[in-house]
């Protein structure tokens, strides 16, 4: 566990130093929100779609976060040192997942604020709890999917185009669940908060599945590289 925290701390320290999240990924994510508004060109429509668009933007941004997470390992072959030093590969996975989770949670918060400001979405009272829980579980699941498939393609040629192809079908149900739960939090007509919590339960299942599957599979995936 100590090793997982060491890896997470290292990843977050790198992020803090390079401020890639702040300077590149966050602006990109917000830009995506703006582009949606421009493309759809209808304020009522945008408001109805706000929840889905937030998570769509999160999906794209998560790809960038994950790609960066593995780029620092493969640039100077640091992954070799990591593998020979860290004992169980599963701990390396958990560490990278934790770091990705923190970054994605920050992004999620940013995007929700963006939706409130740009799209006119509103959250109040008890729905805030639903919203925060959604953000936490969905970010965890998304980190799991990204860190896992990122490992699968880390050393392959064409990895930048492979990652979306592999991660998106896996993330699609997460997108569905997160969007519906957030819709409930934003107070849509079709979904009430009870249904919202059902979706959150589904998100929790995703998170558990991908975190455990990832920890188990990481060793094999990374070992697959030479």
């Amino acid at each position, binding site marked *: 566990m100590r090793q997982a925290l060491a890896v997470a701390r290292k990843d977050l320290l790198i992020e803090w130093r390079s401020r890639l999240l702040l300077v590149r990924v966050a602006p990109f994510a917000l830009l995506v929100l703006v582009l949606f508004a421009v493309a759809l060109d209808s304020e009522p429509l945008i408001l109805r779609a706000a929840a889905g668009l937030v998570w769509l933007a999160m999906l794209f941004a998560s790809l960038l976060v994950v790609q960066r997470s593995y780029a620092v390992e493969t640039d100077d072959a640091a992954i070799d040192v990591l593998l020979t030093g860290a004992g169980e590969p599963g701990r390396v996975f958990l560490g990278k997942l934790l770091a990705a989770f923190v970054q994605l949670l920050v992004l999620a918060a940013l995007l929700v604020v963006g939706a409130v400001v740009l799209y006119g979405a509103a959250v109040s009272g008890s729905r805030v709890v639903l919203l925060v829980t959604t953000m936490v579980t969905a970010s965890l699941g998304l980190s799991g999917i990204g860190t*896992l498939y990122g490992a*699968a*393609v880390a050393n*392959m*040629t*064409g990895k930048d185009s*492979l990652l979306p*192809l*592999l991660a*998106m*079908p*896996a993330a*699609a*149900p997460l997108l*569905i*669940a997160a969007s*519906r739960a957030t819709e409930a939090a934003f107070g849509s007509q*079709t*979904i009430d908060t009870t*249904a919202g919590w*059902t*979706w959150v339960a*589904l998100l929790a*299942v*995703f998170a558990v*599945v991908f975190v455990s*599957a990832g920890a188990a*599979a990481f060793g*094999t*995936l990374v*070992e*697959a*590289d*030479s």
Partner: protein
Amino acid sequence: MTTAVAETDAAAGTGTAATRVIGVAALVVVAFVAVSALLLTPADAVQGDSVRIMYVHVPTAWVAYLAFVVTAVTSGISVARRHRTLGFDRVAGASAEVGVLFMAMTLVTGSLWGRLTWGTFWQWDPRLTTTLFLFVTYVGYLAVRNIDTDPQRRARRSAVLALLAVLEIPLVHFSVVLWRSLHQEASVLNLDGDVRLDDLMLFTLFAGVVGFTLVYAWLVMHRQRLAALGDAQGTVGLDAAIAARRAEASSVPTGVAARTKGA
């Protein structure tokens, strides 16, 4: 690997007695199904002749999911065993390739059927949507398989991806079902749910399933043998490459070794 090579024809084809029998059987059954589906069975009261697509759509859907299960199971075995797993990995890959083909056919026939029946090419019903996601997942799986050059590495990496897909598909299906239930469409969109099947139709459907499964088996056997030949060729090539590599040693100037001996 050598066994696989020995089993095939001297002419280095991938056919054997087994594939010939299966091939003939498949041909016969599919021919019967074609005749029966197009000529012998009655049209549906509601859908008319467009119901005949069912005889292709349902069997291909069945085979697509069968292929998926086979890939998953052989991948699981491939991961669980430490040695001699390449045979299972080849079957997993072959099954995935054929499965993707059948999945594409399922989606196309489903889409056409929908077009003929309701006038739209696509409906977001759970079965069609889940099949679409499964299709994309397998395209990704095959993309990864194609890049790996080393058979061992390819076996390991794709086995993990296949097993992950097994986990994902129930999640996808459940999410989509839950999602579409919001729109209260679940019962309306069952293409084959509304069709009343008489005995001949049922039999034709059943024969279709059998026939298409035979075609699947035939394709997988050939494809798997092709992969085995390819890997065997890689091994033969390896021995030659090793010999060539060692030959480099004799071309190293002995002056290098001599230089360090002195003071």
